[in-house]
């Protein structure tokens, strides 16, 4: 009994091990450390957003004389000023982190799952299955991203869930290719050949020998997918196809742009822009460091 417990504890530990080692490996890279810190801050802000946002993001601010506080520059009451509709920019900015992260994480996990599924099946089995799946990705790869997203969101309606769905539909293709190519090399590894020679079932080989060894690439792809998802959500919102019931950074920029306030209200335009750059760059930094550390040919041997 205690042995079973011991074993299951060991199993959990082993399953977590790649994550822990990955993390340990990443914090050795100064860029990745920055990336992780920025990303960490975003996650924290997103979690506690409702408590730290000073105002309701859509509440109209009024001046003492009862007029709408339009395009007020930063002040002590409104650190980042107000929008053309009298909303507090800082509050919108803080609440916007939630959408970015929700879309980013959920879409990335979905993308990771589908990419892995397709990539593993295609790469492992090869032959006609591979052929069919790869032709499917060819088709998917020939669809221009944003125009498709525009049509699809127009079709499904602009809710966060639909945006996530569309992002998933768009980005599984690249991941499937990458993961497939890793599986192709992994499949040729001698221990996989051995397992086949020993009579192991396909499922056994995939679960025991292929998946654990491609997890790193999956992780990398999921990280990158978070960035793509955030970027796509922002672009859609910027084009006016974001979920209207919540604030997002792309939407803030869209509103600023459509209100013609681009040049006059820097406090409304600059913060969401910088947030987007910071969040996406932080993910790219993590991804890059990860690539650098896991690719022996890129690794700095000094």
């Amino acid at each position: 009994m205690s042995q079973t417990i011991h074993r299951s504890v060991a199993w959990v530990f082993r399953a977590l091990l790649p994550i822990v080692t990955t993390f340990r490996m990443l914090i050795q890279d100064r860029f990745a450390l920055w990336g992780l810190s920025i990303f960490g801050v975003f996650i924290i802000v997103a979690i506690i957003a409702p408590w730290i946002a000073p105002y309701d993001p859509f509440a109209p601010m009024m001046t003492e004389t009862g007029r709408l506080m339009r395009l007020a520059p930063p002040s002590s009451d409104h650190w980042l000023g107000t929008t053309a509709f009298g909303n507090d920019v800082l509050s919108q900015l803080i609440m916007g982190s939630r959408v970015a992260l929700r879309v980013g994480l959920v879409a990335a996990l979905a993308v990771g799952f589908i990419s892995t599924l397709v990539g593993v099946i295609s790469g492992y089995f090869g032959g006609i299955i591979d052929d069919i799946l790869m032709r499917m990705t060819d088709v998917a790869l020939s669809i221009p991203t944003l125009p498709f997203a525009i049509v699809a969101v127009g079709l499904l309606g602009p809710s966060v869930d639909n945006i996530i769905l569309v992002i998933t539909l768009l980005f599984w293709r690249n991941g499937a290719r990458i993961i497939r190519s890793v599986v192709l090399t992994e499949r040729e590894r001698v221990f996989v050949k051995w397992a086949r020679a020993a009579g192991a079932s396909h499922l056994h080989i995939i679960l025991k020998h292929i998946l654990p060894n491609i997890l790193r690439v999956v992780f990398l792809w999921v990280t990158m997918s978070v960035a793509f998802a955030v970027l796509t959500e922002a672009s859609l919102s910027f084009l006016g196809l974001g979920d209207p019931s919540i604030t997002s950074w792309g939407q803030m920029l869209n509103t600023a742009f459509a209100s013609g306030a681009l040049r006059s209200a820097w406090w409304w335009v600059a913060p969401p822009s910088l947030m987007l750059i910071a969040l996406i760059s932080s993910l790219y930094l993590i991804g890059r460091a990860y690539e650098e550390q896991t690719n022996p040919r890129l690794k700095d041997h000094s």
Partner: protein
Amino acid sequence: MRAYITRRLLQAILVVFVVTTIMFFMFRIMPADPTTMFLEGGMTEEARQVLLEEWGLNGTIWEQYVLYMGNLLTGDFGNSFFYRKPAWEVLFPFIINTLWIAVPGLLLGAFIGSALGMIVGWAPRGGKVERSGILLATIIRGAPSFVVGIGLLAVFSSYLNWVPGYGMGDPQGQTGLMRYLNWDFAHHLILPLCAVIIFFIPENLLLMRSGVVEARTEDYIELVRAKGVSEKRVAWHAGRNSMLPLITWLFPALAETIAGIVVVEIVFSWPGVGRELVLAVVRQDYPVAQAAFFLLAIMIVLANLAADLTYSKLDPRVAYK
């Protein structure tokens, strides 16, 4: 080689066919009815039926599909609902406009990016050049294209007032090629072109850099260095080899690239095909939107083919049968 190209072309046709089919059905199940563009005045139901018939929207969806694909084979994309003329005629000038920012943007971006990538890749590992190069490239890569566009607009057009930030300039009655070969056009071209270039640089830079860094560890680079040739020559060997992964990325990345260009066109009011595509979707001008998708799909597929062929030119190891 010819057999290979034939095979790839057939593959490409299949892909385009499927993409076209998908887009066709996507547009047909869109909730809106395109006749509503004419409805503000309260069109009568009879008139609506006339329009539907005229646009080939009255049969079952399968009939419409067969009709559409049949017409497509003869090069007929249908008539734009909005402009009332062949979708192809509508799109053609926009395509030219887009090419003006897309092609030089892509080429310059790739060139500048890979040149910088060579420098960063060849710089000492862990040194200032490498670290700042990577950091900058990553940050720029993390900037959505509309943020880049807005930033450029704000700084160079609004604040410094150096260059205009909208449209293609006033041609003063110039038409044809002369519409593009004038100073005013060039002046208007600067910002959107810069946005596209900036959009391209980081990816190229980072890819080139990893390529060069990887190549630096290759045995053949060691041998080249052992031969006592100049460092520049050694770098050339590394760069030449790193172009291969770059090519494989560059062309297929078009699908994502188009997204960047669409946004750039919108931000800079550039009358290009991307902006028209978005407008067509909003206006439910299906024939134009579908034709644009069709053209983009063909472009991407051909670019992939071109990537393969270029690759085979650059990499003598690849021999297609």
